């Protein structure tokens, strides 16, 4: 089915040689993927998170047919990996190597038209498609200049444009907002959301946690070739068993505070005097979204005046650190 990805026990072992001296080396096997299995549903934005060397790029290269897996099977858009590779390539749009995947002596438009030809679009269709993408991504000024004159961010934008040339049902984007300034990154994310709303499935890798939280329907955390966690962002956060913490400032009576503590799911509610008003700190097992409306309703019913609410949420970074023991900045590559 278009837009669906199914992976069954996919493994990849690299055979390499490690230098032991000037003329000596010994064979070494590096397991980059160890029996990964999961499914991506059509129409979802699926995030891949992991530190350097976790296996994200290896997984993506296997799915895009650049690399043959050592074992296991996968189906991309209904086509089986290693058996129907041409059909996979025709139905996937990729942005993998950022600005490095472009011909710098050609203009942006020439790059798009050339890649359109490699996707077997007719001459008229590739020109039309290039025009559409240039207009959509606001590349008008740049399109007819040589890529070597572009800034890093502009090259990334063109690389993203290249991924759209074949209007594929599945997009694989490897850190697409890397080197983009904030407005351009925001714009690109908006385009990705729009494409997703049109029905495209997106596999999105990023180091930026906030991006994963806002963009992705589901996230897989990969480390050392294994999927350590997979689920929606709320599910992953809930799996932490860490209490949600909300601080509320205002005029809050003792009765209001006790009523809050009696709410189902609230483990603790403590008050303190801060700057002439009361600060109520509430700790609960429930997540923010379900707790907050009940808190406000209860406080209002007991005539409290709420001036400020400060939630302290479990973040995806917390989930990541808890699962891997490392931050995203740590390098997991085999030494």
């Amino acid at each position, binding site marked *: 089915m*278009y837009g669906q990805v199914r992976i069954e026990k996919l493994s990849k072992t*690299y*055979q390499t040689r490690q230098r032991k001296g000037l003329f000596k080396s010994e064979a070494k096997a590096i397991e980059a993927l160890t029996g990964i299995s999961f499914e991506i549903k059509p129409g979802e934005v699926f995030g891949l998170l992991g530190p350097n060397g976790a296996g994200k790029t290896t997984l993506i*290269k296997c799915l*895009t*047919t*650049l*690399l*043959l897996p*050592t074992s296991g099977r996968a189906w991309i858009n209904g086509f089986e990996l290693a058996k129907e590779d*041409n*059909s996979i*390539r*025709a*139905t*996937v749009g*990729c942005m*993998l*190597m950022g600005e*490095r*995947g*472009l*011909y*710098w*002596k*050609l203009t942006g438009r*020439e790059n798009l*038209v*050339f*890649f359109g*030809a*490699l*996707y*077997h*679009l*007719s*001459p008229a*269709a590739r020109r039309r*498609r290039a025009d559409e993408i240039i207009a959509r991504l606001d590349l008008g000024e740049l399109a007819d200049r*040589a890529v070597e004159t572009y800034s890093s961010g502009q090259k990334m934008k063109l690389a993203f444009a*290249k991924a759209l040339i*074949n*209007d*594929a*049902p599945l997009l694989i984007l490897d850190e697409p907002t890397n080197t983009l300034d904030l407005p351009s990154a925001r714009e690109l994310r908006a385009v990705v959301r729009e494409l997703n709303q049109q029905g495209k499935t997106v596999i999105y890798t990023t180091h930026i946690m906030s991006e994963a939280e806002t963009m992705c329907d589901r996230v897989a955390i990969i480390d050392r070739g294994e999927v350590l966690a997979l689920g929606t962002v709320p599910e992953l956060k809930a799996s932490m068993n860490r209490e949600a913490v909300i601080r509320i400032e205002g005029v809050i009576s003792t009765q209001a505070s006790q009523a809050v503590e009696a709410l189902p799911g609230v483990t603790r509610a403590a008050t303190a005097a801060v700057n002439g008003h009361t600060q109520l700190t509430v700790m609960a097992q429930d997540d923010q979204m379900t707790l907050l409306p009940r808190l406000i309703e209860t406080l209002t019913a007991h005539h409290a005046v709420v001036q400020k609410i400060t939630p302290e949420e479990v973040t995806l970074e917390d989930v990541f650190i808890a699962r891997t023991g490392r931050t995203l900045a740590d390098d997991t590559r085999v030494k």
Partner: protein
Amino acid sequence: MTTSTIGRPTFRQTLSAALAETRMRMINISRYPGQLMLEIIIPIVFAAMPILLGRANGADAAANFKANTGTANYVAFLLIGANAFTLVSNAFWHIAYWLRFEQETGTLESVYLTPTSSVTLASGVALYSIVRGLTAAFLAFFLGCLIFRVNPFEGDVWLALAFILAGLIPLYGVALLFGAVVLKVKESNAIVGLMQWAVGFLMGLFYPVAVLPPLVRWAALLFPPTWMTNGVRSALLGVGFFFGEWYLDMAVLWVFMLFAPLFGFWVFNRVERGIQRNEGVGQF
């Protein structure tokens, strides 16, 4: 859902992709005009050195040359050799360096992500290389003849052209073999540099292959450029075909034309598949 073709592309689509590759490379090289000028000048300068050496030997040079090669026109003989060598060098460099350069710049992975096969891409690069190489070779030959005052239309020009075209196709098959080596070894400069000079030596760059030692002469006859160069010289200057008649030498080139590209593609595909199993084709 997708504007791309799913499954096997039609012949027209494959041809269109190959021509797009050719066109893209033409556009690319047109932005390096100095490089194009050099390709016309270098064969002339290259041939000029032995030509001037011959001139320094006086009137005897032509007579001696005729006694050993069958033609007194050593100027045209050397210009043909220099330009044939340029065609051979271009074939190796354009194919092998195409792979290496694209690995370094990251564009090889980009093109491998598309449904166009590497055979189609290589065909597009080969066509570009043939057009670029032939244009430079013809311009260099005519300019060289003008400078050194020899008649470029002496002999059977159409037969010479036929030998060039018949020699180019197997040449690119051989070049693809070295492309496979570049993919695997990832060191293009040394390999291509070595091979272009080895082939140049064997094909009789500035001398007839008859002067080579017997074993080396047999090795030389295994290379299509040797037959191509001798065919052009025989057509234009009457130096003599290897088998005595033009159609027999042409038949040998046709056999090369049939097998060399097939063998080159087969080796290339096997190496490519092997690399895909390990580090991935675009990996530098």
